[in-house]
């Protein structure tokens, strides 16, 4: 797709700005993982991993580390001072019980009422898999979605209603794409920020649901987020 857009790093940086210091954060697999790399080092963030880790640190040096100390994406990680280990059931208490302040999730689709579809498509014959997505979506205090604005073939992913199977209804608080930052509000979708150089009409065109624009829409400048 042509036209102005944020890079992946810009998108991750934009999400990172919204994570307050002191937050307990669970980053979903894939694109959301990038957010951890660009959070300001001045913030003290406690990362949670569904497989029983609080205080997850960066990957160990190659060849070092504990092969069983992995994150939800099955990649090797470390533990920071103050971190702890616990079993799966306790880990999901944290997720479902409202103890995680912020989660950043990928998505196939988000509806204008904050419904989230991020676990299954309409692909037939392929075995389904759900993991911890549903527990996290219903339980985190704040659910941020980080995704491309449209599918690879240009179809909108922000829709009046999801067409893919739901992960959870009415859970998404904010959507971050390469084009905009959009809040899910009781009055529908509200654009807070838009990539510099993109017309509002064009953003609407690439979006399946009706957008409103905040009074003070901010411009996001690629490379300077």
């Amino acid at each position, binding site marked *: 797709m042509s036209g102005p857009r944020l890079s992946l790093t810009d998108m991750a940086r934009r999400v990172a700005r919204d994570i307050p210091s002191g937050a307990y954060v669970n980053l979903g697999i894939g694109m959301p993982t990038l957010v951890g790399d660009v959070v300001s080092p001045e913030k003290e963030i406690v990362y949670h*991993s*569904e*497989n*029983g*880790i609080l205080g997850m640190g960066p990957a160990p040096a190659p060849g070092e580390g*504990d*092969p*069983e*100390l*992995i994150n939800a994406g*099955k990649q090797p990680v470390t*533990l920071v001072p103050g971190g702890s*280990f*616990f*079993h*799966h*059931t306790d880990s*999901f208490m944290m*997720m*479902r019980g409202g103890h995680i302040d912020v989660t950043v999730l990928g998505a196939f689709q988000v509806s204008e009422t904050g*419904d989230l579809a991020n*676990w*299954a498509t309409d692909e037939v*014959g*392929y*075995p*389904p*898999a*759900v*993991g*911890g*997505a*549903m*527990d996290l979506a*219903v*339980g985190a205090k704040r659910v941020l979605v980080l995704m491309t604005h449209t599918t690879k073939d240009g179809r909108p992913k922000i829709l009046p209603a999801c067409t893919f*199977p*739901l*992960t*959870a*209804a009415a859970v998404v608080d904010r959507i971050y794409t390469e084009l905009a930052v959009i809040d899910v509000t009781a009055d529908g979708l509200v654009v807070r920020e838009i990539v510099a150089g993109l017309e509002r009409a064009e953003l609407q065109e690439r979006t399946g649901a009706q957008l409103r624009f905040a009074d003070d829409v901010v411009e996001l400048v690629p490379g300077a987020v």
Partner: protein
Amino acid sequence: MIDKRVGSLAEAVADIEDGATVLVGGFGNSGIPVELVHALLDQGTRDLVLVTNNAGSGDSDVAALLREHRVRKIICSYPRTTGSIWFEERYRAGEIELELVPQGTLSERMRAAGAGLGGFFTPAGADSLLAEGKEVRVINGRRHVFEEPLHGDVALIKARRADRWGNLVYSTAARNFGPTMATAAALTVVQVREFVGLGELDPECIVTPGIFVDRVVEVGV
């Protein structure tokens, strides 16, 4: 004298029967009781119902049970992972039944079994296809789905150390499903890296008290 230590992997799994529901610990490649699962493979049991987070990867452990047609049904949250070739093959051929459960619900259902509860309402999955055919109830304005306890005939798990009472401590994120599965099965079998003397584990730090454990076998890794 209470002594739950057994001398061999074969002995540890000897009496697991065809058709058993077997809880298998592990998340990705962390905390999988690889040696116990291979002992079960060697033992020959068939028609198993496996409860495990992932459906195996490559050719080892859970994947090997699938390859050898030992598994009738799998109850798990994330069967599709890199290298889950045997699961996918059996699934596409219609040779294996899949019960897909959100990960927290999977763990919580086993806990309910271990805790003697009759089931619980959870918001996870209540808005989804996975709630189909289940009781849904609005509690405090939010949809919840009723989930039943999930009992195992056997649990196979991995821990770091055990004493002769079966008290266990784990190692980092390999703990994952182990402590919960230990509570949920009629027979809990544990492979550990090393045995220690009774009293050597700090009573404040024991993660799984021996009451939940039936057999421990030392595998040295």
